[in-house]
């Protein structure tokens, strides 16, 4: 199967794409005839379907939680159209997951639905998109545009699509990106039946906003990024709704006589300055990220800094070994459970990445996180390998341990788990 398919006149997609193309051309004041546009539209579709199985070694800490096993199936497709030799494109990436246990984890999202026009020294991107910022591995501190799809995975790397108008300007002195972000997305949290949550469930019906515009507040961001020799710099200012909610317990009236508490989400307004730097010096990658955030409730500074060192061809083989070390710091320091703050206020992370460079692209990643202020550890192991041409199998192990009553990890003490997944790519 060839990947790029010339859209024949008869395909059903033609109509809508032509319409978008025409609108876009009108927007950009470049008169084009629909026929001309349609004639060189290229279309491709890719994606993956993944089956995932989690096994928790212990019974859940809280009564409603699932006991040991959780299965789920997810699909993510990417439909892509381009014309004018790639200067104009439309991307549509729907996602859906069905979970056997946690109804909050059964969810869908439009990861992307965007039109992009690229010119020589500027680009306009309109629609729902994903934008990543940052250089470190164990925490993505400066990454702020997209809301975390928290129910997806433990690592917070999965993001919800964000509506935006983004103008990107390429200059000799760096790339400047201007973002207007209408429409705020609330974070997703594990439900009552779900694991990897605290004692109280986050209620997605009890949400309040500092801004009277609520979810409709128009957020704004301005970013500059540039590479000078071995250094890559990024810096930004963000003004708008804090992606992290302040969670507070509130009484929930239930149908029965029992009273129950759940967590109410409050999204404040924030201003945030962020900086990220990477120095790529031979086998060393030095990484630094920092944010300064101010809200009506608090002001703080946080950093994530460390390095990655690569050994190429270890043990006289094709194996590459990367060693990573990062430290997290937050000016708010240690916080009581339920108080505002960061879990990563003084934490050290060590990691090792082994790439086998074989036909199957086998890879192994291990990481240990340790809280230096009190006794808490986390351990992750991720291994994956290709089978045949289109399947990727992965094994993940996550162990979480804490003796401190105040640590959120303590509430995850019984959530050690093994995750197996098999994904088919098309």
């Amino acid at each position, binding site marked *: 199967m060839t990947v790029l398919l010339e859209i024949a006149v008869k395909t059903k997609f033609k109509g809508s794409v032509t319409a978008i193309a025409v609108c876009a051309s009108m927007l950009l004041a470049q008169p084009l005839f629909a026929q001309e546009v349609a004639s060189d539209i290229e279309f491709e579709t890719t994606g993956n379907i993944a089956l995932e199985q989690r096994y928790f070694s212990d019974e859940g800490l809280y009564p409603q939680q699932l006991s040991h096993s959780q299965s789920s199936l997810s699909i993510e497709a990417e439909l892509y159209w381009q014309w004018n030799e790639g200067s104009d494109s439309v991307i549509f990436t729907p996602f859906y997951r069905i979970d056997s246990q946690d109804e909050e984890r059964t969810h869908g999202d439009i990861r992307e639905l965007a039109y992009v026009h690229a010119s020589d020294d500027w680009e306009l991107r309109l629609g729902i998109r994903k934008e990543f910022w940052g250089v470190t591995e164990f925490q993505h501190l400066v990454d702020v545009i997209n809301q975390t799809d928290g129910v997806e995975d433990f690592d917070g790397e999965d993001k919800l699509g964000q509506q935006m108008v983004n103008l990107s300007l390429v200059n000799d002195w760096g790339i400047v990106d201007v973002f207007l972000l209408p429409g705020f997305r609330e974070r997703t949290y594990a439900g009552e039946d779900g694991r990897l949550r605290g004692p109280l469930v986050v209620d997605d019906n009890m949400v309040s906003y500092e801004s009277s515009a609520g979810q409709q507040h128009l957020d704004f961001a301005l970013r500059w990024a540039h590479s000078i020799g071995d250094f890559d710099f990024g810096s930004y200012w963000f003004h708008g709704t804090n992606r992290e909610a302040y969670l507070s317990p509130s009484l929930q009236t239930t149908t029965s006589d029992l009273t129950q508490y759940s967590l109410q989400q409050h999204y404040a307004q924030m201003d945030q300055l962020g900086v990220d730097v990477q120095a790529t010096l031979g086998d060393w990658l030095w990484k630094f990220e920092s944010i300064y955030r101010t809200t009506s409730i608090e002001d703080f500074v946080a950093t994530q800094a460390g390095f990655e060192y690569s050994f190429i061809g270890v043990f006289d083989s094709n194996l590459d070994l990367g060693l990573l070390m990062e430290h997290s710091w937050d000016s708010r320091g240690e916080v009581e459970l339920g108080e505002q703050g960061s879990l990563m206020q003084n934490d050290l992370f060590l990691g090792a990445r082994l790439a086998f460079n074989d036909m199957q692209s086998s890879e192994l990643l291990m990481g240990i996180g340790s809280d230096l202020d009190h006794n808490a550890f986390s351990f992750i192991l991720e291994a994956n390998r290709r089978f045949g041409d*289109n399947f990727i199998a992965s094994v993940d192990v996550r162990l979480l341990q804490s003796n401190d009553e105040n640590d959120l990890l303590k509430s995850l003490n019984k959530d050690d788990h093994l995750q197996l997944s098999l994904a088919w790519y098309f």
Partner: protein
Amino acid sequence: MFTQKILMSAITALCLTLVSNSSAALTIEEQKGLDISIEAKKRDLGWQDSMSDMQMLLRNKQGQESIREVKMKSLEVLNDGDKSLTTFNKPRDVKGTAFLSFSHPVVSDDQWLFLPALKRVKRISSRNKSGPFMGSEFAFEDLSSFEVEKYTYKYLGEEELNGLTNFKVEQYPVDENSGYTRRIVWLDTKEYRVHKIDFYDRKDSLLKTLTFSDYKQYLAKYWRADKQEMVNQQNGKSTVLTWSNYAFKTGLKESDFNRNSLKRAR
């Protein structure tokens, strides 16, 4: 614009000649080896930019096969290494991954990788020259552009190969991160096209043999082999590289090789 490029190309050619003449204290064999390499480079100057599709067929000792597909865009940068943008198409799980490289003849290259799942652009270390490219028998350094400054040379003599008279030149990598102690290269005396390369590993034993075939000439000047076969002499694995859809002087610009173009590469 075009005249400027032609001028720059002439200057580069002149510089190459100067490199050749200024290198004192070379033996006759070293001088001849260098001269042949300079001539080969000169004959390949001025293509400005190119686009091509590459398919790799990986085969292990048991005969199991696997396919890789990439698209390449390159921009000739005079008096520096070329810029290139590589987009991965197969295997499917790496589809959308893209690689941007600004190569430099002497100092290390600048390289960025775009990871589509996270939409993340990652600056990566360019030290990894000897490692395999996508699990194939080609190392990263085997796929990078030929620059005269990357090696020192020694002429070994003439030899018949594929019915053509070939120069046989030994090349010693300057970069200590190279996976090789030396390469022996066969170039035909008529067109200075490479027909075969023997690669010697760090222990100086024969590691791999690369053969070039199906040469085609583009724009009445530039020769490109449609097929390259790399055979690993030590482990019996092989990789066949097939090029298609070659196009030169397509009008690619500097702006096609930056962070933004990396993010939307297809």
